[in-house]
């Protein structure tokens, strides 16, 4: 039996790694991956704590939905990034800054 704290630690670590990737990477795809990390951190939490919610299975349910939605979001995002690439020939978000004040 792995203590709950470990799940939490790992999920927190995952979240932070994801966040770091989001903030530091110079590539939109890598940012997307960072987002996935963060999502998965949350999903991990849900599943881990779902153990206390056997009746409704809320955690597991949520995890499933989240996975599906994450996939959809990634698909949409990838399509959009592709679109960006066709115009900019680049997917570095620091370069793409035409819209600004």
């Amino acid at each position: 039996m792995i203590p709950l704290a470990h799940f939490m630690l790992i999920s927190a670590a995952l979240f932070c790694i994801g966040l770091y990737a989001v903030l530091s990477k110079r590539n939109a795809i890598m940012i997307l991956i960072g987002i996935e990390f963060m999502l998965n951190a949350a999903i991990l939490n849900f599943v881990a704590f779902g153990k206390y919610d056997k009746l409704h299975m809320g955690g597991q349910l949520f995890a499933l939905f989240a996975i599906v939605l994450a996939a959809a979001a990634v698909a949409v995002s990838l399509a959009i990034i592709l679109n960006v690439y066709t115009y900019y020939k680049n997917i570095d978000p620091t370069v793409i800054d035409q819209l600004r004040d």
Partner: protein
Amino acid sequence: MNEFTSVLPELIKNITTGMPHFLPEIVLIITFIVVILTDLFYPGKKSVHTYILVLTGIVISAFFTILQYQSSVNGISVFNDTLKIDRIGIIFKLLFSAVVILYALFIKGNTRMQNHTKGIGDLYMLLPGALLGLNLMAMASSLLMVYLSIEMVSLVSYLMVGYVSDGEKQSEAAMKYALFGGVCSAIMLYGMSLLYAFTGTLSLSDPQFMIRLAEMPQSVAAIAIILVLVGIGFKLAFVPLHFWSPDVYEGAPIPVTAFLSTGPKMAGFAVLIRFMEPFHTASNTSQGTPVFDFVAILSVIAISSMIVGNFAAIWQNNMKRMLAYSSIGHTGLILMAIIVNSNDGIKAMLFYLMMYSIANMAAFMIAGKIEERTGIINISSYKGLGKVYPLEMVCFVIILMSLTGLPPLAGFMGKVLIFSAAIESYSASNSLWMLSLLIVAALTTVVSLFYYFKIPLNAFLRQSDEVFIVKVKRDALSYISLILTLLLILWGIMPGLLI
């Protein structure tokens, strides 16, 4: 597993009894599927069929929603407490339907969208989906549904922004929107997972939710709640989650911008109300310290939103960007009504939202029409347009007056109601936050005048250097915006018609 089988029939019963209450949404789902199919089989370039179908579907769904109004005085929870149908939710749903219908009309009237190479059918197809998401947001009463509906609306919005990708800017806007949204929803999800971890339930109306949360250390609970607020705030675009909005509003096609500034934003408020509900019932019943001090944090957010939105708007030259900032300012103002958190506050908020969405829609319609006809997107190029488009520009001015909050227009009544609620709350609580909110709201109203009035300034007060040789033709959009303007005047003089 046995435990589960014992509750299974009850669960199923729960679902079947809930179905009638879900009728409007079912209609939307059916419309959605039918539209996909129609568009597949009758792909005509203008997609007239899809257009008509979408409108019909939405109208039917709205009709069912109206039917629900009588039966939902006390609020009905369906689907195991995931959805809650009450009057506020229904009003929101009706508002969404209205906004989406206007949106559809807008797309229909916008020739640039109509002439797009990819055809317009896919965009119509998204409308029922968007409305479905919005409706769910209005009804969501569990964390799962909150996340689900928000993501649904987000996905649809990403697609809308990226859909007519005919330029660098637009694709950039879509990318920013999607990535920013992704990060925010991930953060929100993490917050939700923490909340789930602390409370063991997803339902917001479950009493356990609050009891358990109150047992947690305040700072820890606060972290989870703030993380969830990030997700909601992304939809509302309040400070500091507003960064995406000017860029995306500018980059997106005008009808989409119009939609983004109204639909999802209103839904965000609906979700925020839902999310805060248990906290308030808890603080009303129990004597102890509140679990989370929404007043302070939302006041800070509201004040900074009003300041950032209104002051940054002063310098904008791009019409859409200006409206983006101004809508950040309006968000701050509407948050005031939420902070008051009384029945009056919500009523005031609903009235204000209604005015705001109509005015914003109409404003974008006119701006879109002008952009389409003359290619003008900058306010400084509006010079002399008052003579070319007298009807449109007069409407525009009235709309902007309403947004500023000048009597006798609906915007003024909205402001009065919100201020009334805030002052009432202040006189009850003597909270310093309320007072500072009021003062900032009043000050930023003056500031807002400054940038809104750049448009009449250019359109009427200045003479154009060049002669417009565009053909002045009034089309459906002109008349729709005229009707909306008249509505603003009517509600300003007779607000009793609404409430």
